[in-house]
C-alpha cells in the first residue's frame, strides 16, 4: 500500500474527527420570523469536556429562554438569536470564543459560560470590550473581585454567590441543642473554585460555635485522589462531614469509601452532587442517598410564579418532570430574564445596560428577585438546603419556610450495614 493511501486514511480519520468536533461546537437558537434584524446574544458553553453535563444543561436554559422570548414577539420587536460556541471546558478556548463573538460575530450581548474556571477569563475578555457579562454560574469571589470587574463593573449574576450556599446549613447545626450538636467535623475539599469556598465559610461558623475540626484538607479533583482523603476522614471519626465536591463522582466516591470502612457520619452535606436528581440516585442508590444534604438556589418545585411557568415550558419542550430539571437550566434562564429586562429598559447598548443594572433596580427571575451590588453579586439573604429522604429530594432549610420539611437527623446508616 502506498504512503499516499496511508496519509489519506489518516487524514480522513482526522477530518472525521474534526467534523465530529465541528458538529458539537456550534449551535444557535431560532431567530423567529419577524422580518427585523435579530438581537444577537453570544455565549461560550462547555458542550464537551469536563463540564459538558452542566454546559449542555445551560444550553437548554438559554435556548428555552430565547424560544419563550421569540414566541412573545422578541425584544424591542426584534427576534433574539443565540450564538453559542463550544469551549470544550477549556479556559483558553473560552477567551478566543468571546473575542470571536464580539469582534467577528458582532453579538449585541454576552451571556456567561459554566464554571468559575471559565467565567473568570470570560469576564476579563468581555471587560476589555466593555461588554456586560450576565452569568448564571461561576459566582465565586474570584470572579466578582477580578481587577477587570472592579474597574469596568461588567459582571452580573442573578444566582446566589457560591460562598453563601451552605450558610443556612451551618446556622442549623449551630442552632441544635448542645446535647445533639456534632462535636467534631471534617472538611475535605476538592481543589475547585466552586467547591471549596462554601465549605470554608461553614468551617469558620462551626469553629466559632465550638465544633472541633478534625480534618480540613484540599485534594485534587482527580478520581484517584478521592479514596485517600475519604479514608482519612473516616479514620478521624468526625460526627459531621461537609464535603467540598464539584460533582456527583466526587460525592459518590466518598460515599463508597465510607461504606467500605463502615463509617457513617451523623450529618453529611456536600457542596454539589446530591443536587443531581435522578443522576445522583442512579449513582449511589436510593437507600444510600437518604440523609445526604446539599445547598441549592433553585429547585423544580420552587414556589415562584415565573419559575412555575418556566418549569411547565421546559417539560413541554424536553419532557420529564419538575424534579428532573437541573438547576443549571434555571440559572441560565434567569440570565436571559435579566438581559431582557435591561434591553427593554435601555436597548442593546452595553454601557447603558451596565449602568442600568447597577442602578439599584430589582428584577424578577425564576430564581427570585435580583438586585446587584457594585460588583454584580445578587446577595439574596438565604439559599435552600435540600435533603434526600427515601428517594425524595426535599427542601429542609430554612426551617419553617414554605415547603420546608423536618430534617432527617442523624443520618441513617448505609444500606446493608
Amino acid at each position, binding site marked *: 500500500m502506498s504512503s499516499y493511501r496511508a496519509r489519506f486514511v*489518516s487524514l480522513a480519520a482526522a477530518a472525521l474527527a474534526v467534523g465530529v468536533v465541528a458538529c458539537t461546537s456550534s449551535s444557535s437558537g431560532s431567530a423567529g420570523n419577524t422580518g427585523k434584524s435579530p438581537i444577537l446574544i453570544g455565549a461560550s458553553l462547555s458542550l464537551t469536556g469536563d463540564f*459538558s453535563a452542566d454546559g*449542555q444543561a445551560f444550553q437548554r436554559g438559554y435556548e428555552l429562554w430565547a424560544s419563550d422570548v421569540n414566541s412573545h414577539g422578541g425584544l424591542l420587536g426584534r427576534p433574539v438569536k443565540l450564538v453559542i460556541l463550544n469551549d470544550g471546558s477549556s479556559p483558553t478556548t473560552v477567551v478566543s470564543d468571546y473575542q470571536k463573538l464580539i469582534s467577528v460575530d458582532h453579538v449585541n450581548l454576552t451571556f456567561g459560560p459554566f464554571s468559575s474556571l471559565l467565567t473568570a477569563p470570560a469576564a476579563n475578555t468581555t471587560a476589555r470590550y466593555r461588554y456586560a457579562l450576565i452569568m448564571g454560574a461561576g459566582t465565586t469571589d474570584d470572579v466578582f473581585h477580578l481587577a477587570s470587574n472592579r474597574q469596568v463593573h461588567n459582571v452580573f449574576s442573578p444566582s446566589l454567590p457560591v460562598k453563601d450556599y451552605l450558610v443556612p446549613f451551618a446556622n442549623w447545626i449551630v442552632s441544635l441543642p448542645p446535647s445533639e450538636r456534632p462535636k467534631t467535623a471534617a472538611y475535605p475539599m476538592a481543589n475547585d473554585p466552586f467547591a471549596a469556598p462554601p465549605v470554608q465559610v461553614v468551617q469558620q461558623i462551626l469553629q466559632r460555635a465550638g465544633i472541633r475540626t478534625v480534618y480540613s484538607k*484540599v485534594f*485534587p479533583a482527580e478520581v*484517584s485522589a478521592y479514596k*485517600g482523603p475519604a*479514608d482519612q476522614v473516616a479514620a478521624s471519626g468526625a460526627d459531621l462531614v461537609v464535603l467540598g465536591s464539584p460533582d456527583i*463522582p466526587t460525592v459518590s466516591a466518598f460515599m463508597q469509601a465510607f461504606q467500605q470502612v*463502615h463509617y457513617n457520619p451523623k450529618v453529611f452535606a456536600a457542596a454539589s452532587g446530591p443536587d443531581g436528581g435522578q443522576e445522583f440516585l442512579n449513582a449511589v442508590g436510593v437507600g444510600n442517598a437518604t440523609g445526604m444534604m446539599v445547598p441549592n438556589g433553585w429547585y423544580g418545585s420552587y414556589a415562584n410564579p415565573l419559575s412555575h411557568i418556566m418549569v411547565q415550558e421546559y417539560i413541554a419542550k424536553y419532557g420529564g418532570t419538575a424534579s428532573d430539571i437541573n438547576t443549571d437550566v434555571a440559572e441560565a434562564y434567569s440570565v436571559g430574564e435579566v438581559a431582557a429586562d435591561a434591553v427593554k429598559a435601555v436597548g442593546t447598548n452595553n454601557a447603558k445596560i451596565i449602568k442600568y443594572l447597577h442602578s439599584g433596580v430589582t428584577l424578577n427571575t425564576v430564581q427570585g428577585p435580583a438586585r446587584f451590588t457594585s460588583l454584580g453579586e445578587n446577595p439574596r439573604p438565604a439559599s435552600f438546603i435540600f435533603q434526600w429522604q427515601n428517594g425524595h429530594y426535599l427542601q429542609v432549610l430554612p426551617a419553617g419556610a414554605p415547603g420546608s420539611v423536618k430534617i432527617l437527623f442523624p443520618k441513617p446508616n448505609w444500606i446493608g450495614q
Partner: protein
Amino acid sequence: MGRLIYEAIIDGILIGGVYALMAVGLTLIFGVLDIINIAQGILVILGAYLSYVLSVHLHIDLFVGLLITVPAMFVIGITIYWAFIRPLRGHERTGMALLASYAVAIVIEGILYWIFTPNYVQLRAPYVTASVRVFGFYLPYIYLYGFALALALVGLIYLMLYRTKFGRSVRATMQDQVAARLIGIDVNRVAGLTFGIGVAVTAVGGMMYGATSGGFNPNSGYDLISRLLAIVILGGLGSIAGALVASVFMLTLESVVNVWSPEWAIVVFYAALALVLIFRPAGLLGRQAVREQ
C-alpha cells in the same frame, strides 16, 4: 499516623492493580506496534459503558459480564487496527498513528455522548461497597478482586508471550519487524491480534474503573490518558510487568503522600516519573530489559 500510612500503602497497592488493568493494553500495543494509542483512555470508558449496559439492562454481574465485554472489545480493537492503524506506513507512521488514534478517540467519545448523554453513571454491585477486615484494616472486595484479576491477566499475557507459538511471533515482532517478516511471520496479523488483545484487556480495566471511580461519563477518558501514559513510561514502554510494577509504585507513592498533603500527592506522582527517568531513561523495565527477558 502510622495506621494511616499502612492504610495508604494498602490503598495504593490495591488501586495500583486497577490502573495496571487499564495500562497493560497500552504498553502491549506499544511493544509490538511502536505506537502510542491515545484512544486508550476512551476505550477504558467504552469498556465501562459495555459493562454498564450488561449490568443495568440485562442484570449481568460485572465480572460475569467480562465474558462478553472482553471478546467485544477484542473485535473493536481488531476493527480499529485494520481500519486506521494498518494502512499507516513509512517514517510518518508513528505520528500518523497518534493522529489516527486521537481521531478514533473523538469519534468514540461522540458516539458515547450521543447514546449515553453527558450524565454520570456508575457500576454498582454489592461487593463494590463491601469489605473484609484483616488485621484491623478494611479491604474492599472490589479492589481485592481487581488486584487478583490484574495479577492473573499479567500472568496470562506472559504465558501467551512465552509459552505459545503466537507469543514467539509477538516477541520476534517486538524485537525486529523486518527480521520477523524474513522468517515468515505475518507481522500484520500479529500486530492486529496484539492490538485486539490490548483493547480486550482494557474491557477489564474499564469495568474496574466504572465500579471504583464514583462515576464516569464519555469525557472521563481524558482524565485517564495522562496517568496511563505516565505509568507505561515509568514501567518501560512495552513491558507488561513494568506496567503492573509502575502502577503499584506510583499509586502507592501518591497514596502515602496523600496522608500529609493531598494537593502534593499528584505532583509527587509525576515528579517520581521524572526522577526515575533521570536514572533509568528506559523506565523500570524498559525495552532493553524486556528484550533481555
